């Protein structure tokens, strides 16, 4: 694995988080080649920084290879008094060096003459070099010296991670080389004309592969044919799909939280000898136990290059966690850095095209910390990596944890993130259906990654068996938990852990409005996507078909432990009089009854909303009739 990095990239914190994780896992076979042009976007990188950077890589166990001076400069240093030239360059501030690169031979001559003229050897060098040759000499950094570069790369003999710090000049060979404003600056027409003359490229021959070169095109074409990367050898592998069982076991229990159900389903898979279990790999940023991966890890172990015993177990200290480490382990334990989690998921999720073997990666974290690593999540999805993300606990439902840990907008991320289908099931049997679907979805050619937002709140489970129709509806995003009657004037739509409040409100409403319906939504994201797609081709959406069961313009209350905009769009699907409930303020510590009341998602709030929705529907009908 090789990364070509700009020096300013090392200002990004994720690099250092990754380095630390790499050290823990004894990473091998890795080259980072740093283009050290000493200019960042706006300015010139601090001179003192790189003395720190190489020390840091060495501290992390990396080999650091510095490519500083090219062959011409090395030859000049070997001349009498040459070491004074080296010392002068070493002491030259980055900003002055860059400015002189821009000014060219004349500028170098002026400064060298002023500072080093007392040395006969330096005078001789200045006399030997005209301005062009002096510019060539003084800009002969190793990163622009082909022989030096090849020697450095080919000299590496082992798999120790290696950082090459290659001194370069930003804009090398171009008229604005070295100028601090050149980052996104474009050469103007005059500069381009001058550059074209230097490159000897005629009008109309700009894209001729060998125009203006000293060597005959035939020789270069021959050379290119012999390059190891030449030819049509595919760089991406195909990998056979891993067969997924036709159903996953539904955890038993009358009261369960979706997080608990997740842990138990995965624990059952771990205990089985199903072939696909061998391809599941889990990873978590230091929240393995608190996201309930424990049952999986206890059976499948933690990945490590070497066998490491569980010390607590050996010392007979009683613990629910058995954490032996071995190359066969199927859990990658990460430090608490979410950017690393998403990059690790991205890498595991590209195992098929990169390495020809399909993995089924599952990453777990607390829902609010998706935002901590969201750019890396977007990055993973952008390159079509395939994985399952399990975010738990979530919402204000993690009650006593308080506002800092309570997620609000993540379902909107789930709605808006391309390449990621998101779900928030309420019940264990729904999760079993969805998890099975997800294992297939992440393997489909035109599939996607899948995000589950789960909860730690135990709730009463429905007593039912899931037939194929219901399973299909759960995957598509919603179904009537209580069917509406003919001409229904009201429905309550809920999503996730607020199911008990929705059921209680429904029971109260049904006394007055027996035709009312209760809509279970497993995925606002899937329903929304389907609605948009259906509109594009003039068909009726899934959400549209569900809501068609109500009287036109009927009242609709939506409720979930998330921002109300997650479901408020449902009002536009069939023109219902909608009252969306949800959380749109920072949370606070409390128990669920207090918090649900304070944030307006408890049973009373749903009933109030139902009354308002019915009233709005009535008024609309009255306006229409008048």
């Amino acid at each position, binding site marked *: 694995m*090789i990364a070509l990095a700009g020096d300013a990239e090392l200002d990004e914190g994720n690099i250092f988080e990754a380095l630390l994780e790499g050290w823990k896992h004894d990473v091998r076979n890795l080259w980072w080649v740093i*283009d050290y042009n000493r200019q960042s976007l706006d300015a010139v990188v601090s001179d003192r920084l790189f003395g720190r950077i190489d020390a840091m890589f060495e501290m992390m166990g990396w080999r650091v290879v510095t490519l500083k001076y090219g062959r011409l400069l090395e030859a000049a240093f070997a001349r009498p008094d040459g070491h004074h030239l080296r010392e002068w360059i070493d002491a030259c501030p980055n900003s002055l060096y860059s400015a002189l690169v821009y000014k060219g031979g004349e500028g170098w001559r002026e400064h060298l003459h002023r500072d080093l003229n007392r040395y006969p050897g330096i005078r001789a060098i200045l006399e030997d070099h005209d301005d062009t040759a002096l510019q060539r000499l003084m800009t002969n950094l190793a990163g622009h010296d082909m022989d030096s570069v090849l020697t450095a790369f080919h000299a590496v003999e082992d798999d120790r991670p290696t950082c090459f710090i290659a001194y370069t000049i930003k804009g090398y060979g171009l008229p604005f080389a070295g100028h601090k404003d050149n980052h996104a600056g474009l050469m103007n027409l005059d500069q381009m004309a001058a550059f074209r003359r230097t*490159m000897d490229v005629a009008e109309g021959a700009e894209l001729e592969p060998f125009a203006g070169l000293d060597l005959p095109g035939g020789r270069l074409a021959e050379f290119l044919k012999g390059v190891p990367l030449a030819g049509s050898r595919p760089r991406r592998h195909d990998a056979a799909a891993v067969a997924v069982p036709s159903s996953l076991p539904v955890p038993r229990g009358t009261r369960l939280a979706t997080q608990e159900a997740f842990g138990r389903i995965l624990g059952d898979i771990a205990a089985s000898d199903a072939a696909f279990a061998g391809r599941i790999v889990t990873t978590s940023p230091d929240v393995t136990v608190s996201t309930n991966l424990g049952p999986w890890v206890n059976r499948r172990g933690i990945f490590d290059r070497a066998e490491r015993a569980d010390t607590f177990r050996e010392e007979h200290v009683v613990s629910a966690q058995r954490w032996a480490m071995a190359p066969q382990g199927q859990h990658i334990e990460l430090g608490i850095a979410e950017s690393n989690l998403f990059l690790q998921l991205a890498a595991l999720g590209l195992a098929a095209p990169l390495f020809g073997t399909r*993995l089924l990666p599952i990453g777990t974290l607390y829902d609010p910390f998706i935002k901590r690593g969201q750019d890396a999540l977007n990055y993973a999805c952008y390159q079509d990596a395939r994985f399952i993300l399990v975010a738990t606990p979530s919402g204000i439902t993690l009650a006593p944890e308080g506002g800092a840990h309570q997620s609000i907008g993540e379902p909107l991320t789930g709605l808006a993130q391309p390449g990621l289908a998101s779900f928030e099931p309420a019940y264990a049997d729904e999760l079993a259906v969805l998890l099975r679907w997800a294992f297939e979805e992440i393997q489909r050619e035109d599939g996607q990654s899948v995000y589950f937002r789960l909860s730690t709140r135990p709730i009463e489970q429905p007593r039912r068996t899931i037939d194929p129709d219901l399973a299909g509806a759960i995957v598509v995003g919603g179904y009537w938990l209580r069917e509406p009657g003919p001409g229904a004037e009201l429905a309550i739509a809920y999503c996730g852990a607020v199911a008990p409040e929705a059921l209680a409100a429904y029971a109260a409403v049904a006394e007055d409005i027996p035709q009312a319906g209760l809509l279970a939504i497993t995925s606002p994201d899937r329903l929304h996507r389907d609605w948009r797609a259906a509109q594009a081709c003039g068909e009726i959406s899934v959400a549209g078909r569900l809501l068609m069961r109500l009287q036109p313009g009927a009242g609709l209350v939506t409720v979930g432990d998330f921002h109300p905009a997650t479901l408020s769009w449902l009002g536009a699907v069939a023109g219902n009089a909608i009252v969306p409930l949800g959380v749109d303020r920072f949370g606070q510590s409390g128990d669920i009854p207090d918090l649900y009341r304070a944030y307006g998602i408890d049973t009373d709030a749903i009933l109030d909303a139902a009354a308002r929705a019915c009233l709005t529907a009535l008024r609309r009908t009255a306006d229409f009739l008048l």
Partner: protein
Amino acid sequence: MLRTLESCRGREHQAEPADKLACLSALERKVLWLSTWMIHNANHIRANRDGLKVGGHQASSASVATLMTALYFDVLRPQDRVAVKPHASPVFHAIQYLLGHQTRDKLERFRGFGGTQSYPSRTKDGETVDFSTGSVGLGVGMTLFASLAQDYLRLKRLVRRMTRRAA
């Protein structure tokens, strides 16, 4: 311990033959030209309908022309996987063009709809891009985790050892 492609490079190395250096220096010059031209064409020659600056990073591309020429035309082996710094995208596209993996048409449409991408993209630029880059720092970190993923598979014997350097 695991040893891979990188492990056997050093031993085979001798002084670079003058002919090879000459070819690589000529190609480096061409890579610099093509990447500079690609950006110039997109900004100054191609029709501009919306008045927006098309952009591209000529200076940041120029600084890695030597390094990337050396890597792509000599050092890298088919099994190596690379993340290229986002601003060097034109250099990458130029190299793929010279290797016959990129079309002239797409070079002319650099940063245009359906053309070569502003930053190398696995999904938009296709097969030759191993890792997308663009969000500064993430492509670099990605190589580290891809290396861990590779060792995860190797240590479980879930993947064949990659073949050694081409003859």
